[in-house]
């Protein structure tokens, strides 16, 4: 309890469906993490600014709109530009299997699709922190 893992949960882009993000946020909370929930319709710039101010260990993004190939790498690159290299980035949502290799290559370290047990997400974050 002394040093909880801090995770930013964000919805980049324009789709208004945040049920999944809320379920994940709740699961991370129950796993003892501090979840900074920033809600809907975030720009990559806002997500990066929030991640820096909150000094999070991980960022979890959820997209259901299909814009993942654009928005996920954008967040990764903006963080790099700011010199932030110790934050774990994961994504989730309705993401076609075929797009996942590209996203992983872009620096998103895991992509969780519908049906993933929340425990898998918790475990992945816990075991892959960069600091």
């Amino acid at each position, binding site marked *: *309890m002394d040093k*909880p893992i801090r995770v930013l949960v964000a919805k980049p882009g324009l789709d208004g469906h945040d049920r999944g993000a809320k379920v994940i946020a709740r699961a*991370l*909370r129950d796993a003892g993490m501090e*979840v900074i929930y*920033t*809600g809907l319709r975030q720009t990559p*710039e*806002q997500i990066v600014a929030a991640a820096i101010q909150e000094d999070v260990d991980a960022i979890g993004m959820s997209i259901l709109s299909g814009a993942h190939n654009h928005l996920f790498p954008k967040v990764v690159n903006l963080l790099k530009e700011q010199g932030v290299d110790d934050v774990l980035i994961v994504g989730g949502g309705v993401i076609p299997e075929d797009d996942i290799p590209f996203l992983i290559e872009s620096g998103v370290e895991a992509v969780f699709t519908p049906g993933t047990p929340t425990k898998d997400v918790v475990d992945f974050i816990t075991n892959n922190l960069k600091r």
Partner: protein
Amino acid sequence: MDIRERILKGDKRACARLITMIENNNEEAIDILKELYKNTGNAYVVGITGPPGAGKSTLTDKLTKELRKLNKKVGIVAIDPTSPFSGGAILGDRIRMNDLSLDKDVFIRSMGTRGSLGGMSNSTWGAVKVLDIFGCDYIFIETVGVGQSEVDIVKTADTVLMVMVPNLGDDIQAIKAGIMEIADVFSINKSDLDGADKTKVEIEMNLDLNEQKDYRPPVVKVSAGQNKGIDTLLEKILEHRDYLERTDKLKEIRTRNNKLELLKMVEEDLMKIILDKAVKEDLLENLGKKITSKETDPYSAKDEIIALIRK
């Protein structure tokens, strides 16, 4: 570059990292604060408190925008409750402040209470110092949603803003002791709803019963969602600041708060020393069971622990 220099130059990452270190009780962070303590004291600290869902975050967002028009640098510490079971938390105050994220002269930090019960977290004091050193002109501390007795904010802030909403209860609620006593400025948010005038009258009538001093807390109707009354509210906050500075009461308040903080830190450290020394978890478990089975009673069990500490 050293974290000290970076923070004095207004580097947000350094500021964020130092707050994390404070939250995690890192000793190096305490050394840094010792060194930079002389750089504190420029920021004016406003505590924002009120029941859950009253609109504290939205109001903080709007007040910050108003201060930005005056070109002031603003720090925000937003506190939400930590789960007593898992130690986790959902920190959701930022949702109401998202368009401040990109402002280079605004810094927002969310914190979990991490076991503290007074509406704040134990690290809030430290975080406020960091933001002060970082160069903020104003710092807002947004407490968790409070009920009736979480009054710790008054021990930290220069001005306490109480955010009320219409129709939460009758006039008996207004005369109860506790959070209604600590406000320097009252705001009735969501005042576009029915009942705002009645709530205002109830608070005013309660204030009529106070010993009449040279300062009387104003009651301001606002609607943060509709951005109404925010300029007046900020004016009232600044008037309170002006009053404190004019009458030298600001120094009095800060000295009182410093004493309270000091005492709290000593208490914390003492408790740690004592608990480490004498109160081991198995002893507690054992005594707990014995009390349940009536082998002993709580008072004798307490004496037993105290005897161990005295040894």
